[in-house]
């Protein structure tokens, strides 16, 4: 029986021990759980805070971007306006130059040309009354007066042809091509005009004349062509000027980088004048085939 009692005592001790260890384990488990929970919630809080901060930054960045977009649009609008103003001023400047040329040409005509005509009329009248002996040597003065008159008119027409203001661009083209044929009989100029004088806005008429003058001048100097085709027409809502030669052509890039192109009106001047007057300008040149320039402006009713 003693052994039974011993066994019972040992078992009770073991159970006590087990209970104590269980309690300790539970305690440790609870502690571990608590600690884990604490850790998890801290981590989550960090995450949330971080997220909030990032969101705030994103909102700020988005606001900044929006602001910059508006600023950029304003700057672009400003730039656009400035460009437009610059174009207007440049065109006004071109028109002012033409007005000045017109004024000088008119003064030459009224002040000098008319005087030559008067001198000739007076001299002829005197010659009619003189005896043949005196009149014959004096008649030699008449061709000199004639040359003076022609020179005066040449200077005047070079400045700005009177036809442009008196009769319009179509008569001016007709006159200019005839004068060109006289000066360059080896070059045939074929013209095709398919519009009315009133279709063209007045300031554009001057630009058309200056383009024609420059293009034919270039053709006679460099192209070695025997044929020029000139077209001025109304087509698909635009006024179109095409000047085409079948000469030797050239390399556009090479010519555009030459400094000499800045002399006179040049290609860049032709392009600029067209743009300033509200038109578009193209040039195409192929070696051995020829060169074509095309300028176009919106029709008067589309402006």
């Amino acid at each position, binding site marked *: 029986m003693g052994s039974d009692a011993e066994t019972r005592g040992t078992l009770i001790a073991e159970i006590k021990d087990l209970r104590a260890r269980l309690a300790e384990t539970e305690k440790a488990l609870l502690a571990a759980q608590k600690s884990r929970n604490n850790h998890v919630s801290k981590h989550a809080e960090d995450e949330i805070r971080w997220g909030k901060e990032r969101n705030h930054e994103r909102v700020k960045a988005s606001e900044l971007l929006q602001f910059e977009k508006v600023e950029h649009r304003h700057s672009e609008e400003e730039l656009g306006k400035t460009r437009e103003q610059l174009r207007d001023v440049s065109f006004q400047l071109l028109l002012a130059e033409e007005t000045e040329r017109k004024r000088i040409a008119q003064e030459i005509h009224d002040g000098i040309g008319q005087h030559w005509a008067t001198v000739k*009329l007076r001299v002829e009248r005197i010659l009619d009354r003189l005896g043949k002996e005196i009149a014959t040597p004096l008649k030699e003065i008449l061709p000199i007066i004639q040359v003076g008159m022609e020179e005066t008119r040449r200077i005047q027409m070079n400045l700005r042809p009177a036809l442009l203001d008196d009769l319009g661009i179509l008569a001016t083209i007709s006159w200019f091509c005839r004068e060109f044929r006289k000066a360059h009989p080896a070059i045939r100029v074929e013209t095709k005009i398919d519009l009315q004088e009133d279709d063209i806005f007045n300031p554009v008429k001057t630009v058309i004349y200056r383009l024609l003058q420059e293009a034919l001048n270039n053709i006679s100097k460099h192209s070695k062509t025997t044929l020029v085709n000139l077209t001025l027409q109304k087509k698909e809502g635009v006024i179109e000027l095409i000047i085409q030669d079948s000469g030797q052509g050239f390399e556009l890039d090479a010519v555009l980088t030459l400094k000499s192109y800045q002399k006179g009106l040049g290609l860049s001047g032709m392009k600029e004048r067209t743009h300033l007057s509200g038109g578009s300008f193209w040039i195409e040149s192929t070696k051995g085939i020829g060169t074509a320039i095309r300028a176009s402006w919106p029709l008067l009713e589309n402006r």
Partner: protein
Amino acid sequence: MLRALIVEDNLFFREAFKTSLHEHLPSVVLEEVGSGEEALQRINGTPPDFIFTDIRMDGMNGLELAQKLKRDFPRIRIAMVTGYDFPEYRRAASQHGVDRFFVKHSLEWKEIEEFVQSFPKNNQ
């Protein structure tokens, strides 16, 4: 008696032209004005038989004057006297109702005399 009006803004040429015209056509009564506007005023009083007009003038030019005269006074014969001897001016003159075209620096007085003397025949 035939009457002619000279419309020319350059005083020196106007005087010289008038003197020569008078010598070639002494029977024609000559009057003169310095602009298209003045010409219209003068013509509204007593219309002349002939007009000799320049093209280029301040204000109304000779072509505009010719067009108005042809419309309102078809009996008046109009001659253009200009320094620009180009076919384009001749064509425009004819389109504006001008009857004859004379060039300032090579005036053919015979032609001017014929133009004036043909007046009654053409207007009968």
